[in-house]
């Protein structure tokens, strides 16, 4: 498994939460993906140590587990920014100008798709449809969808979030 970089937030947190999640599903079938999702919800990504516990407790060879984790695009092996920006590149968004939205955000935050800003505020991702196609082009920041965007509007939304975050 790849080495996971040093991450303050994670170091502060114990592995207790991960153990708790695994325990909750003990003896149940069809829950591995759910366990991984819940662990990621807590830590923001899947720290190597938690995966080792999952492998052990659920009796899955670590290599198999790693294969599962890397198969699904939702799972992350390294920490992300505070806010995750998902730019939709589904069909409707593609034909209504998603590329331009990405370009504007890339220019504004100075990161590429898949990267996180140096202040760990934003991570930029590409997704394949947010299911709000009638409002295309759209982006999702954290759990909120913003639709009918232009490059300018998208930048304003992000500015506002950065600003709100500063104010606390």
């Amino acid at each position, binding site marked *: 498994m790849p080495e996971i970089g040093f991450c303050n937030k994670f170091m502060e947190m114990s592995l207790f939460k991960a153990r708790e999640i695994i325990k909750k599903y003990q003896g149940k*079938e*069809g*829950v*591995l*993906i*759910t366990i*991984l*999702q819940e662990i990621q919800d807590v830590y923001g990504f899947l720290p190597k140590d938690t995966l080792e516990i999952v492998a052990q407790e659920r009796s899955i060879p670590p290599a198999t587990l790693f*294969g*599962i984790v890397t*198969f*699904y*695009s*939702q*799972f992350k092996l390294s920490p992300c920014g505070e806010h995750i920006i998902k730019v939709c*590149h*589904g*069909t*409707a*968004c*593609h*034909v*209504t*100008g998603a590329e*331009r939205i990405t*370009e*504007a955000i890339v*220019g504004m935050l100075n990161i590429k798709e898949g990267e996180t800003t140096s202040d760990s505020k934003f991570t930029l991702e590409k*997704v*394949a*449809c*947010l*299911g*709000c*196609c*009638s*409002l*295309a082009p*759209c982006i*999702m920041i954290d*759990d*909120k*969808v*913003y*639709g*009918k965007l*232009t*490059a*300018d509007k998208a930048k304003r939304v992000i500015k506002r979030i950065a600003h709100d975050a500063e104010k606390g």
Partner: protein
Amino acid sequence: MSKIEEIRVGLNSCGIAAGGNEVYNALKEETKKRKLSIRLKSVGCIGMCYSEPLVDVIQDGKAVTYGMVKPKLVADIIEAHLGKREKKETVEKFIVKGDDIRTKEDSFFDKQVKIVLRNCGIIDPDDIDEYISRDGYKAIEKVIGELTQEKVIEMIQESGLRGRGGAGFPTGIKWDLARASKDGKKFIVCNGDEGDPGAFMDRSTLEGDPHSVIEGMLIGAFAIGACEGYIYVRAEYPLAVKRLRNAIKKSKKYGFLGKNILGTKFSFDINIIEGAGAFVCGEETALMASIEGKRGMPRTRPPYPAVSGLWGYPTNINNVETWANIPFIILHGPSSFNQYGKDRSKGTKVFSLAGKIVRGGLVEVPMGITLREVIFDVGGGILGDKKFKAAQLGGPSGGCIPESLIDTPVDYESITKTGAIMGSGGMVVMDEETCMVDVARFFLSFTQDESCGKCTFCRVGSKRMLEILTRITEGKGKEGDIETLEKLSQEIKSGSLCGLGQTAPNPVLTTIRYFRDEYEEHIKNKKCPAHKCRSLITYSIDSDKCTGCGRCKIVCPVGAVTGEPKKMHTIDSEKCSRCGFCRDACNFDAIKVE
């Protein structure tokens, strides 16, 4: 003046994204301030996503719907309904629909028939009593009280219902196979993965009327003899998951789910699984592998899930929309369903209309209606003054249907004949500014990305096709590229195990079939007729139209625009990245693309 009885706000994901929550809060405050006892409720989507946020006011048993409502307008709407004449005039232009009023938006509904979406936008999805008050859970009562497994399956077969997840397999036959499988334990699965980009029917149904899907699954479970069910919802739909969880909880409380349902021996429980972001997991065998906690890779069939599915037990899997049809068919009888439709395609089909269309939203139309009717009568035609070019159906497995075939009826067989597929219901409308080679490249990059990698033809073949298509859009196309694409397509189709690979070439094949000259323009003349492919276009400024306002200069990210204020500006073609920001920003339509 009579009392306002109820106010509804459309709060599906689309309504929320358009600002529905803010409107809801404003209404809450306003009614509180005025001490009005109005029932304020959040409902799903009635389909008019294009004029979200939507607010329905119910007075004297009659509904009036307002569109594009801003929080500021809320007080005026309430006052208008309380009898203030001058406010009536203010709010009138926001009316999009009314029981007693004709509006120009009525044509959006005139040709629609709502079976699947019968409750969406009307009931509060979090309130089981509202579902029950609209005959909810009556179908399962009928099944348990009066019908046998065989009779239920016979009714579904007679209705002519076919799977709405894409392939269109007859649902009754599928159930019968699962019922006939002799084994103690059996499973029911609801496929809510909705992976096709550009599709949101299943999300809307799950968010707007989750109980109809649960009731459908209950009936299916009874018919095949299953005791446990799974609903697999894609990762991007957190609200659908939330509403489903709540619906399952309530349904258990009311005794419709769980042990000894309605006091009988029949027991059935439902689990929710959230997908983890892999398109191929929409394929039934991959989906089941994913529930089992494995990599979501498809396997060969047979054995079909009806014989060996989840953990090797007989499993019946259907799509969200398929399930939502079931209670209606059982309660009202097969003929109430198959009175709609044509030949071997019965009932209705839900489509999500998106792209360059005036009324983007969710529509349910009887099978057999033509694409023209769906796009122009229901959907209101093309945005702006642009010309219709193609409708994309079936997502990455489907194809682009050109204008010459726009009178094709919506039924499984006719659509398949065009080279596209009915698919799950995504319909993305494209206008003259959409480049068909770029669309083909777009879908290929999607399938190439999502290929699970098991079959060589799908894994490597799609990559080679993508390389060729990318080259063509970059102006580096070569003589013979089209033929190579066609050849690779056939090989990928025949050399792939699952539907992903078997259908991945469809978008390329249909665009070659109907827009071959567009490919040739790219390859031979290095021109993109739609002015879309960046390597093949140049931006310039029209001296007659430019006012020297300088907006283009401000937005240009690469400093390619120069010019003094109030004087004509120019674009340095060498520097220009062809992002089009200047064209979006110009208020005078002065930016030309050639």
